[in-house]
């Protein structure tokens, strides 16, 4: 038998070679995908972790209220808990601690009810978080440095000795002395947001003030951490942040890290016991790692789905090759059977041959898949994602290759042993029935798969389930099977038309194409391969376009800057200079809508930007018109104040007890940014008082003034108030706006009824304010006069996202009452849109930032709502250290080039290449076999006087009539599959449904190239085979009996 097999192999080597090629290709595909979903996947998680933003992997322990005696041990134990939770990864820890408040006797006046309080802070790495302006850093016990503004407010200088009073609260630590050795300025984005006063250095109204007194808080008094822990001060808060070094992680170690960080909170509680009142470990690390893992699993699922298509194609190609082999061997096997070889022996021979082929294929595919995988990882996007790998052999890969080769070889044996209806190909009724049943089953499964995909939840967490993996392959196969059923009737119509022609070439081609039983396997292979190539190409571009769209909408603009601190006067110029584009201040905050604070997890969000420049600023699908109708009709203007000028206030009150006013001026810069400046408390005593330090830069206009009045409740219950504000050098010309500045006055909170008859008049560079104020009610009620250069804007128009609208059941025209911070705002829904730029998927509303500011100001809320900046057409933002910067291009690169997702585009490339190769190979096999089978017929046609040219034309026409519709139909099936499932297979980086929803994208250029490669390639292959065959057809063939 071995002799027979080897002799046969020598005679039929081209056939065996093609079988081996198909087997090897399939096994290589499997091996490569196995490497992608195991080796590269695991690497991707590691690379993603090593590339993670340090903020996303830090672990912070917060502890609150620590007695002086426990300070050291709590700090040390907290550090130990964190470092052991992070082990075996090394970590750098930094500690930040603040003492309880102490009184500052030099600025406290018990009689006047004035209390000043201060606190000490110790910060690891202070030199990286603040800039030294004067003196030196604290080194030894008793040294302290202050923020420059704190020092100015307290009148302290380098060298000043400060006496700190006793601690406030129970069990107070005794007074102490410190020496100011330096002045520093806090650096932005350096963690000062966690300072008790948020890094501002001063708070005229600290939130935790326990005394109903006029309390001012100053601080921090920065000392060394050791000094603080040893100072005998009780700690108000102590936090330790650990940043693990994840530069060279391994997948399993990351999984363990996630678990141990999750458990750190409990361990910290156990270790610290009742030495602290509250302790908590918070870290985004577990979520970051978990998200990475689930993304990687999602990608692996998609890779498997695509691999499955490739394997299916390979199996069909193998079936085709197998069919041709048995066709060629039909006579020989009939002879062997006639000579008495049993079926068992034939099967054994086939099995031995298949085993040899499988072994050879596996031996070739293991190194081939290693090399192919390595090549892939050295190409974009995997290379860019840092996943380049040297060729490696893994157990899973060998297993996948081996199993694949064996499974495919078994398929080959099965096909070889099955008796074929040699030559005649008259399909039995039973086979037809079986095929119809298989088709129906395929359709049913494809429909179920598609429906399942459609019904998948929009939220995160959909993992690589069987449906996702199977759906594309099912849909493509079912579609191709359907077209194979539609093709014959179509060809029969074409045949009817061709038969009308007078000559022989066209009718013969038509008759042959329509009437010859076409090889089902060949048709399936060619149709499915074309469908897969089309699907792969279109899916790739749909995926990429969707990532771009997601990035566009999630950033919402070209460059977004989220400020670390409230904006400061004159910031517009800095941002404009740094970004070099169209800029807008942006307010992005959670709001309360009526009683609704956000139902299903997400809080309602209000995004406000300068809608005048919407076209230049907004990005993302549907953003062109999203802001239409939000822009206020006219701009706000006001008297222009020369830089450095100091307004003065002179006022009188008719009351017998003193009345104080703490004026706030609202200044607007060129870009429309409004910032408030508070003056000192001023007694209305008829004398002029300066409001210093407000007009720091040029180009500021005064657009509003708030005058909050205070006075004890004893004495006369009400008071007439008359205040004149002088603006030296003010230019009251309206600037760009044509109308003159008209001032209007109102009570910030008219419903409180404490301030009546508000009035404002402007004359020259003077503003005169009048009102009647009630002081009888001791409750802390609003007594604020607000004067603005613009009228009350009324309800603020909002464009709301669909989710917002459904959450509050709003329609266009619905009136809403929002609470922004503490200020109530009336708003009206003007339109409902699918999503708000920068807030996709969240219940968000868009408003004009100018309108928002006006509404807030009208309510006496002068705090800037602005939380960031947007820049359109931005050059860059280098050197802008105001907060976190996100760019659209950066976000796109992050989404497209993420190591966790780049396997998908890579495997799409492999799929398309494999499909093209299998299609062309299939065409060659099919045509070569077919033409060889018909050599005699061709010779007879020659005998009938048909010229070679005509024979060639008829054969070419016949194959074109079969192949072209197959290719076109395959492309259609691929396009339909893309349209139906590609958008459903795409998920966002959180695993949720993407916003905006993905829609099929047609890469016409790539399609053109694909069509050219397929049609020209197939055409060339057919032409060569046919030409060779037509030339060979001669008298010799006529000697061979059919």
């Amino acid at each position, binding site marked *: 038998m071995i002799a027979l097999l080897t002799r046969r192999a020598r005679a039929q080597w081209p056939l065996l070679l093609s079988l081996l090629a198909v087997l090897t290709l399939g096994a290589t595909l499997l091996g490569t995908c196995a490497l992608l979903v195991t080796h590269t996947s695991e690497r991707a998680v590691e690379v993603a972790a090593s590339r993670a933003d340090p903020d996303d992997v830090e672990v912070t322990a917060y502890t609150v209220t620590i007695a002086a005696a426990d300070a050291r041990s709590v700090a040390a134990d907290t550090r130990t808990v964190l470092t052991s939770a992070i082990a075996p990864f090394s970590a750098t820890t930094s500690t930040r601690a603040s003492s309880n408040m102490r009184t500052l006797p030099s600025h406290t006046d018990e009689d006047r009810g004035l209390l000043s309080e201060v606190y000490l802070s110790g910060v690891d790495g202070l030199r990286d978080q603040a800039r030294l302006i004067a003196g030196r850093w604290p080194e030894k016990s008793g040294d302290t440095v202050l923020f420059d503004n704190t020092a100015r407010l307290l009148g302290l200088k380098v060298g000043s000795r400060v006496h700190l009073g006793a601690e406030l609260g129970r069990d107070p630590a005794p007074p102490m002395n410190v020496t100011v050795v330096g002045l520093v300025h806090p650096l932005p984005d350096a963690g000062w947001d966690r300072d008790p006063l948020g890094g501002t250095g001063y708070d005229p109204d600290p939130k935790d003030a326990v005394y109903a007194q006029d309390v001012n808080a100053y601080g921090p008094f920065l000392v060394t951490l050791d000094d603080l822990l040893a100072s005998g001060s009780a700690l108000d808060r102590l936090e330790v942040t650990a940043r693990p070094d994840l530069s060279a992680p391994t997948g399993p170690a990351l999984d363990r890290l996630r678990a141990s960080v999750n458990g750190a909170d409990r361990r910290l509680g156990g270790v610290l016991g009742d030495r602290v009142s509250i302790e908590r470990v918070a870290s985004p690390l577990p979520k970051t790692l978990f998200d990475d893992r689930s993304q990687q699993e999602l990608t692996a699922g998609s890779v498997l789905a695509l691999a499955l298509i490739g394997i299916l194609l390979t199996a069909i190609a193998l079936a085709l090759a197998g069919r041709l082999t048995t066709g060629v061997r039909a006579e020989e096997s009939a002879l062997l059977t006639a000579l008495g070889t049993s079926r068992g022996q034939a099967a054994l021979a086939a099995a031995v041959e298949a085993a040899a082929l499988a072994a050879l294929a596996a031996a070739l595919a293991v190194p081939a898949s290693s090399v192919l995988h390595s090549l892939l990882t050295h190409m974009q996007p995997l290379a860019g994602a840092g996943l380049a790998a040297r060729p490696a052999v893994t157990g899973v890969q060998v297993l996948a290759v081996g199993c694949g080769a064996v499974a495919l070889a078994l398929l080959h044996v099965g096909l070889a042993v099955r008796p074929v209806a040699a030559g005649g190909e008259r399909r039995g009724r039973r086979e037809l029935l079986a095929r119809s049943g298989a088709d129906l089953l395929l359709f049913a499964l494809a429909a179920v798969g598609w429906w399942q995909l459609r019904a998948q939840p929009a939220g995160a967490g959909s993992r690589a389930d069987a449906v996702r993996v199977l759906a594309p392959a099912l849909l493509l196969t079912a579609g191709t099977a359907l077209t194979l059923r539609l093709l014959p009737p179509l060809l029969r119509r074409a045949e009817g038309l061709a038969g009308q022609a007078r*000559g022989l070439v066209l009718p013969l081609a038509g008759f042959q194409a329509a009437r010859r039983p076409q090889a089902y396997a060949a048709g399936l292979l060619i149709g499915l391969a074309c469908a897969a190539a089309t699907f792969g190409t279109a899916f790739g571009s749909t995926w990429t376009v969707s990532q771009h769209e997601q990035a566009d909408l999630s950033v919402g603009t070209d460059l977004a800057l989220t400020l670390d601190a409230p904006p400061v006067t004159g910031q517009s110029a800095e941002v404009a200079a740094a970004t070099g584009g169209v800029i807008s201040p942006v307010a992005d905050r959670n709001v309360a809508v009526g009683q609704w604070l956000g139902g299903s997890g997400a809080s309602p969000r209000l995004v406000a930007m300068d809608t005048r420049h919407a076209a230049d600023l907004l990005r993302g699908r549907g953003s062109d018109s999203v802001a239409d109708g939000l822009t206020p009709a006219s701009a706000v203007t006001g008297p222009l104040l020369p830089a450095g000028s100091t307004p003065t206030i002179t006022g009188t009150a008719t009351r017998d007890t003193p009345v104080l006013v703490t004026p706030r001026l609202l200044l607007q810069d060129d870009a429309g940014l409004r910032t408030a400046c508070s003056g000192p408390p001023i007694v209305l005593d008829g004398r002029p008082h300066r409001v210093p330090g407000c007009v720091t830069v040029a180009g500021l206009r005064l657009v509003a003034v708030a005058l909050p009045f205070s006075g004890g409740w004893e004495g006369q219950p009400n008071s007439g108030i008359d205040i004149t504000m002088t603006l030296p050098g003010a230019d009251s010309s309206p600037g760009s706006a044509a109308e003159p500045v008209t001032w209007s006055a109102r009570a910030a909170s008219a419903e409180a009824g404490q301030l009546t008859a508000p009035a404002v008049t402007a004359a020259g560079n003077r503003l005169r304010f009048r009102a009647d104020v009630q002081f009888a009610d001791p409750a802390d009620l609003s007594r604020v006069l607000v004067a603005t250069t613009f009228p009350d804007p009324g309800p603020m128009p909002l464009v709301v996202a669909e989710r917002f609208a459904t959450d509050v059941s709003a329609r266009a025209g619905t009136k809403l009452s929002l609470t922004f911070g503490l200020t109530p705002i009336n708003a009206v829904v003007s339109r409902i849109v699918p999503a708000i730029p920068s807030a996709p998927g969240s219940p968000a509303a868009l408003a004009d930032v100018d309108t928002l500011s006006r509404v807030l100001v009208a309510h006496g809320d002068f705090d800037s709502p602005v939380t960031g900046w947007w820049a359109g057409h931005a050059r860059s933002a280098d050197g802008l250290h105001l907060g976190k910067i996100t760019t659209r291009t950066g976000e796109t690169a992050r989404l497209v080039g993420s190591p966790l997702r780049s396997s998908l585009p890579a495997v799409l490339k492999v799929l398309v290449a494999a499909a093209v190769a299998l299609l062309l190979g299939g065409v060659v096999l099919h045509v070569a076999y077919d033409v060889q089978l018909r050599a005699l017929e061709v010779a007879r046609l020659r005998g*009938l*006087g048909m*010229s070679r040219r005509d024979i060639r034309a008829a054969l070419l026409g016949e194959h074109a009539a079969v192949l072209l519709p197959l290719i076109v139909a395959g492309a259609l099936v691929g396009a339909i599959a893309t349209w139906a499932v590609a958008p459903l297979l795409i998920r966002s980086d959180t695993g949720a449904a993407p916003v905006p929803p993905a829609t099929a994208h047609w890469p016409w250029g790539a399609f053109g190239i694909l069509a050219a490669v397929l049609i020209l390639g197939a055409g060339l292959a057919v032409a060569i085979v046919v030409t060779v065959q037509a030339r060979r057809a*001669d008298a010799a063939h*006529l*000697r061979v009996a059919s």
Partner: protein
Amino acid sequence: MTAPLLTVSGVHRSFGAVRALRDISFEVEPGTMVALVGRSGSGKTTLLNVIGGLDRPDSGTVTVDGVDVTALDEDGLSQLRRERVSYVFQTFGLIPVLSAAENVGVPLRLARVDRPDRERRVELLLDLVGLAGHARQRPGELSGGQQQRVAIARALAASPRLLIADEPTGQLDAETGLAVMGLIRGVVESEGVTALVSTHDPVMMALADRVIHIADGRLTT
């Protein structure tokens, strides 16, 4: 005496060491039926292929209806077979996907005959070979004798001057073979064609006007 329709003179053809034809010369009068007789391997098929232009002699000339076949190029040979010479093969040589009528129509299509004329002629020929009722059947649905009759009808379609049949009855039983031979005899008479038929069946020889014997590539009178 009329000019011979077919003149073969001094034809040699070898395949390597095998000398299949050696110095063959003879003439055939128009309107006669000639039987070419010889043992298997004697060179009958080779000779017929050379005459029909399917094969070229190493030397010597073949003239059919005044045309020197050996001097024709590819296109000339195709034209010769379309217009003057037609073949009936031992294995019938019908095109499987075409019906009987369509098979008969193939030479007419090659000659670009108009559809009505073509259909009329196909009908006539099928009638002539007694298969008017089987026009739409495909070769696979016809018996061997019927297939050979379709092949003869096809060979006659383009009104050739010379009909070459290489063992047309070889695949048929004696009775059917006789019927087919009778048919050829009949068309020689009715259509006035000249027929050159190879056979090794003595019964067939009886139907011929003349018998040419060939052995080892040589004529033996």
